[in-house]
């Protein structure tokens, strides 16, 4: 029975999914072994976990490798954009307005005479930062709130469920327009904060469901019978076994947050100039779409590729982590 999620011993190597989980995993194994016979073993003679199985699948999945490569490249250029683009994205020369490709500007120039290539490269930083920070925030807040509600149940749980219902009833783009239209700050943080504020119910529902499922397992009963405290059961036994669906949904959501940032910037309430963002560039280029479509197509292409990479990564991770699809 190599696929049972609560027997993860060889899980640790290379999953990169976080330390707390691995600790919890080995704890679960010791408890499992006490009453039963010999543990199930994989072909290598060691029990294989969901995580090591998933990692084996992922390593052989070309879709995963390709999207991971694209994402690594994006992270690289958001950390060191000057490595592949010379000049500043804010130095523009009106004389070159809407010009085609030239030396040092393979993508041409936009309406303000800015170098489209430089701006496209520098725009990656905003998207990657917003995407990663928003996902991290949403995943943390959502899984803590949803997990606690699922574990303890009762009033807090029904209250939280009603609260998520309320948040689901508000259209996201609309909420963004209302909340962000009065923000004058020029950083990514209001956008990230808004996404965390409106995004957590999605993860909280998933986490709640996963915790309720994990709660009913025998090993949780066993741990409780041995006198483990609530926090110990939650962190060491339930969390490692409930985290997979959260990771899957969060990875896919990352791509949608990047698209949402661009949409909000396009509507003029996300990031604002002089920040460099693909959404801002697309919005600025759309009035000149007739004469200078290249100023719109390059940032739009970069945006689409980024979102695609994250969604494909999420798809690959889901295929690897969802035992039903095996």
């Amino acid at each position: 029975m190599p696929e049972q999620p609560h027997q993860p011993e060889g899980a640790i190597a290379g999953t990169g999914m976080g330390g707390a989980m691995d600790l919890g995993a080995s704890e679960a194994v010791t408890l499992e072994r006490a009453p039963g016979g010999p543990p199930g073993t994989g072909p290598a003679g060691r029990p294989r976990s969901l995580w090591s199985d998933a990692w084996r699948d992922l390593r052989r999945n070309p879709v995963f490798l390709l999207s991971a490569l694209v994402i690594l490249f994006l992270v690289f250029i958001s950390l060191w954009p000057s490595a592949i683009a010379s000049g500043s994205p804010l130095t523009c020369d009106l004389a070159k307005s809407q010009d085609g490709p030239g030396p040092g500007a393979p993508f041409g120039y936009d309406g303000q005479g800015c170098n489209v290539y430089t701006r496209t490269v520098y725009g990656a930083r905003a998207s990657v930062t917003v995407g990663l920070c928003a996902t991290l925030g949403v995943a943390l807040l959502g899984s803590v709130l949803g997990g606690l509600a699922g574990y303890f149940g009762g009033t807090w749980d029904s209250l939280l469920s009603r609260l998520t219902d309320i948040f689901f009833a508000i259209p996201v783009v609309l909420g963004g327009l209302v909340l962000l239209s009065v923000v004058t700050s020029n950083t990514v943080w209001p956008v990230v904060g808004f996404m965390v504020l409106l995004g957590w119910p999605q993860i909280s529902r998933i986490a709640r469901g996963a915790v309720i499922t994990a709660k009913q397992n025998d090993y949780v009963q066993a741990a409780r019978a041995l006198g483990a405290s609530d926090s110990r059961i939650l962190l060491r036994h339930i969390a490692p076994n409930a985290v997979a669906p959260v990771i899957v949904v969060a990875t896919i959501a990352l791509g949608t947050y990047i698209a949402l940032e661009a949409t909000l910037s396009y509507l003029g309430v996300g990031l604002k100039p002089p920040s460099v963002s693909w959404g801002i560039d697309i919005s600025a280029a759309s009035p000149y779409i007739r004469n200078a479509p290249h100023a719109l197509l390059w940032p739009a292409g970069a945006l689409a590729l980024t979102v695609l990479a994250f969604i494909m990564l999420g798809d690959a991770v889901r295929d690897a982590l969802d035992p039903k699809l095996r």
Partner: protein
Amino acid sequence: MGRYVVRRLLQMIPVFIGATLLIFLMVNVMGDPVAGLCGERACDPATAAQLEKEFGLDKPLWQQYLTYMGKVFTGDFGTAFNGQPVTELMATAFPVTVRLTVVAIFFEIVIGVTLGVVTGLRRGRPVDSGVLLATLVVISVPTFVTGLLLQLLLGIRWQWISPSVRYGTLDELIVPGLVLASVSLAYVTRLTRTSIAENKRSDYVRTAIAKGLPRRRVTTRHLLRNSLIPVVTFIGTDIGALMGGAIVTERIFNIHGVGYQLYQGILRQNTQTVVGFVTVLVLVFLVANLLVDLLYAVLDPRIRYA
């Protein structure tokens, strides 16, 4: 059935109050409602005080909310920045957006479900991989990019359509509707595909084939009907998202619908317009969800509402 509907309607009340209160707070706390009335300059203090008194803004927020909701239930949504009653704006804006949403949902059902059935039945074949890849690409390209691209190609380069919508008639809304539907369309395709592929192996399908029913009947009556439940859920929750998300599509194609009015209301910080429109959108979302739950019983006879 009747008791179930009543219970669901009662459950909708706290969600409705919560959502409208949230929007009300967002609009009021974040912006200064009076500032928008004085145009670009700051209001002089006496005018501001007079206006605040006139609109009841000097009262505590919860009292404002109660007064506002009380008026809403008598059909008075207040006045917009230009002195027009908000209900008048709604009367012109909602029909356009409803048409746009209907076009979008039509595309979702017709194209999405068809592609989903075709790929679900041929899982792993070239058609399947091709459509799957196409849906991934469509999901990845944000709506405003799809819209701008189609506007550039169909409206400006090839001149098949007019790049901006003038009257909001159905034929003008075909391309905007497709743009609005695009991302959801891809999700519907993938959802139907997974659902069909899962149910294809179920016992009742095997039984239906074994008792000699024609393929077409097995697919439409047995397989599709049972596979549609998650799809119906998705489309139901999507109605609210589509009407709210129409803000982007309406901006690209210059459609004067709900999104346009909301955008104007937000830019001019007109509380009455924004809260009014959002209130109606929240209601639409809740009612659509209720209808979806009732549709379950029609699709799956195992589900009964006592």
